[in-house]
């Protein structure tokens, strides 16, 4: 079996096997077999992901590791897989985080652990499938199928209002994506193929492009999420179990951003140009307004959730700043800077938000509270943990030297080329982000020990340290030396820039 198929189906098959096997132990509770299977499968998937990375050709923008088989040949739907510079980093991110989620849940999930781990494995396979699909209908199948395990994860292992949150999550995203299905079918009849690559080359009138762009926008804006369709995210994040929040923030949101570079921009470049103003406005509202909203949160998870919306605003800003740059400078350098910045921001936010949710998870496992007011002076009882938390908080703020800096800096730099005011407004996030993140850290981590609960805290154990350290390495590594990541995507970015600067009309 080929590399990409293995990446997709290994975790799915592992998950299905675990469901069939159920909760079993071998030789007492130490050897609960489900978690070992989950770890083995997800670790193997990560190793295959590394293999993919090592064989990835960074000099070409065309699809690599292509697998192409007829699937529903009656309608020319193909099992068509491939990766390029946009999908490879996100696949690696997914494969990297899933083992960490498994380790993080090692003995904290008591209720039906086999189903818990199986859901995450199946989810992992489906997410990788989304990023690998080059056939639009195959993409849609993975895109929708992923709702099923996520619905179960939030609903079964979530917090108090989990039922409300998970149904809201499902209906919001389902509503967003059904119109995309109609748009994909329309494109099929125009291109006589479901291949996304054929969609890219399709000449379309401005009306067609605009309608298609809007249909895609609903789907992707809900996923990103963009203001004003972000309201499902705080609910889903807060109620989801730690692992669910991690995957939701780190990978699911990226599907929306990925959709913009895979579909909206190349399929409807002229509509993107037409509506770039709208997209930039929505992005800036997300950055500024949601930044203020994050400031007043009392719940740590909710604060990180709003911070995610604000950070994802940078991603969409970076993607749609392109036409502003053309108007001002006539050069394409700024455009690729914006798109690269958006992509780097996605990966970096994936790491940082995952780490922050894991940090909250560590605290929640001990005190069973997410309220900021229940903590204070955690550094006195958990010094190692406090070091990690402060590091990730600073990365969230975008401190130079962390991965958070690279993406934001590139996007702001690109915005400068378009308009001083775009850059000015976007840069307020450096203040707002610092305000809400550091204020939270101040209230929870620093100061005198607030109450007996905090006094009784014990520091992170080996398992938790391992998880947090693994992410910390990449957050610092990409911050100090982002070149490998940027090299990975640069031919694809250049190709996209060349494609979208040519009108289809």
């Amino acid at each position: 079996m080929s590399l990409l198929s293995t990446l997709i189906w290994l975790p799915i098959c592992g998950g299905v096997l675990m469901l069939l096997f159920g909760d079993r132990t071998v030789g007492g509770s130490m050897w609960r077999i489900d978690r070992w299977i989950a770890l083995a499968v997800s670790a193997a998937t990560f190793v295959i992901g590394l293999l993919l990375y090592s064989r990835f050709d960074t000099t070409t923008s065309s699809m690599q590791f292509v697998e192409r088989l007829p699937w529903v040949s009656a309608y020319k739907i193909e099992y068509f897989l491939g990766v390029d510079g946009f999908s490879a980093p996100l696949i690696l991110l997914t494969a990297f985080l899933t083992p960490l989620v498994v380790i993080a849940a090692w003995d904290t999930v008591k209720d039906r652990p086999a189903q818990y781990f199986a859901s995450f494995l199946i989810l992992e396979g489906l997410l990788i499938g989304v990023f690998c699909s080059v056939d639009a209908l195959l993409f849609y199948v993975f895109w929708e199928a992923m709702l099923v395990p996520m619905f179960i994860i939030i609903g079964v292992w979530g917090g108090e209002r989990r039922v409300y949150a998970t149904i809201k999550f499902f209906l919001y995203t389902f509503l967003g994506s059904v119109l995309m299905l109609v748009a994909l079918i329309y494109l099929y009849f125009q291109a006589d193929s479901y291949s996304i690559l054929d969609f890219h080359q399709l000449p379309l009138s401005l009306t067609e492009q605009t309608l298609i762009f809007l249909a895609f926008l609903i789907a992707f804006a809900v996923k990103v999420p963009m203001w004003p369709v972000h309201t499902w995210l705080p609910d889903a994040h807060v109620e989801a179990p730690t692992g669910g929040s991690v995957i939701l923030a780190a990978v699911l949101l990226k599907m929306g951003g990925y959709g913009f570079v895979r579909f909206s921009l190349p399929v409807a470049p002229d509509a993107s140009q037409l509506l770039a103003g709208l997209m930039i406005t929505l992005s800036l509202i997300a950055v500024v307004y949601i930044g203020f909203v994050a400031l007043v949160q009392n719940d740590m998870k909710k604060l990180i959730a709003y911070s995610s919306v604000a950070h994802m605003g940078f991603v969409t800003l970076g993607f749609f700043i392109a036409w502003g740059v053309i108007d001002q400078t006539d050069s394409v350098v700024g455009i690729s800077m914006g798109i690269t910045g958006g992509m780097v921001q996605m990966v970096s936010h994936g790491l940082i938000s995952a780490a922050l949710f894991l940090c909250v998870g560590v605290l929640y496992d001990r005190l069973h509270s997410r309220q900021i007011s229940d903590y204070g002076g955690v550094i006195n009882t958990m010094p190692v943990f406090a070091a990690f938390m402060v590091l990730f908080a600073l990365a969230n703020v975008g401190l130079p030297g962390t991965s958070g800096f690279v993406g934001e800096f590139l996007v702001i730099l690109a915005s400068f080329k378009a308009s001083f005011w775009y850059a000015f407004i976007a840069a307020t996030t450096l203040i707002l982000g610092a305000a809400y993140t550091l204020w939270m850290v101040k209230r929870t981590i620093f100061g005198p020990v607030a109450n007996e609960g905090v006094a009784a805290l014990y520091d992170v154990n080996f398992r938790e340290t391992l998880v947090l350290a693994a992410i910390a390495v990449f957050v610092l590594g990409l911050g100090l030396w982002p070149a490998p990541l940027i090299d990975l995507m640069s031919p694809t970015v250049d190709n996209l820039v060349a494609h979208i600067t040519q009108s289809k009309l």
Partner: protein
Amino acid sequence: MPEFAPAFAEIFLAVGICVVLITDLFLPQARRDITYILALLCLVGTAWISSGIELDASPTILFSGSFIADPLSQFLKIFAIAIVSVGFVYSRDYLRERGIYRGEYYVLGLFALLGIMVMISAFSLLTMYLGLEMLSLALYAMVAFDRESPIAAEAAMKYFVLGAIASGILLYGMSILYGVTGSLRLDQLATKLMASDPGQWSVLLGLVFILVGVAFKFGAVPFHMWLPDVYQGAPTSVTLFIGTAPKIAAFAMAIRLLVEGLGSEAATWQPILTVLAVLSLAVGNILAIAQTNIKRMLAYSTIAHVGFILLGLVAGNQAGREAALFYTLIYVIMAAGAFGMVILMSRTGFEADRLDDYKGLNARSPWFAGIMLFLMFSLTGVPPFAGFFAKWSILAALVDAGKIWLAAVAVLFSVIGAFYYLRIVRLMYFDQGLDRTAPEAGLDLRILLSLNGLVLLALGLFPDWLLRMCAAVMT
């Protein structure tokens, strides 16, 4: 080979019914299993004969133009027989536990199947009416099968009165068409209508009456009133029967009458059908949300799915008819599974028809909670389950026909529909139930029901061959 060889399956079934009926007369209650096995053997034999009939390239027309044997009829018949067999297997324990394990159930079921097969092969208005009545009368009796249940008696009464009116209207429409064209044969009807100028008011009148008959049989809004009451009131095994095989008959009826007979009047009936379809989607999906009884909820969900099937006919192209056929088949499989789950959950004195009865099923039986999850997500239309491809094929046909706004309306209503299917999943997985014991049922029911759910997954992953089959028979 005699000239009427293509009708052997129907003849065999009619003889088989008599044999079952007479054998059953001499059996004591303890030996009722013999009737059951005979009925199944009868089905197997009918299916075997049906599949063995060799068809010419052009359709064979028998009995002075009242009976047609074409690939479509063969395909639909085999599918109907299969689904009736599944229904029989599902319902055996249910009937026995309620003390209504009688031979008449199988005789009536086989009679209904005969009616369905006659409808599928009908090539004249009269044959269609004959098949419809044979099916309907059997169903009326089946709904009232549990004599002790007042709610079933009420449902049967409603069904009978409304059904009789609908049959009368249909017959009236047929008589008008006969009066205008002077022919009962569908092909002659089509040529004569083609020759006359379109939009004749007398034809329009007959057409509207026929549409009412078809819509009633499907249960499309506003002719859906009987459906929730009958689904809820009838014993679950009968609901399962009504919810599955007769839908195939309704589809055949729509194709034969509207497409083959009145195809030239498509410009007239398509707008009417559009209204019926959109209303069905709206009413079915919205009212289903308010239900607390799962059988009633599934009844409203049926209405919504009928809206989708009708949209396939509204598309008016070849792809639309193929999609409607594909949707009907997938829907029937899903309905069989869903009612099969209700049967599995029920036991003596407990119907398991309230939504709350499904609370905490995941703790009681992870396997069947999983099967129900498959069914519900398939009904919602979420990939990788077969329901997604059913919806997708209808949407593709609509977009191909240039009716993009209809496709958009249809998908938006299916989002509303998602809510009530999700509620079942929520009850099974997120809520705790009082009952902790795993549902008990015979091995046959458990295996077949599991297969039923897995088939939906398999067809969702590999829909190609069924789509091709639908395209091949629908010419």
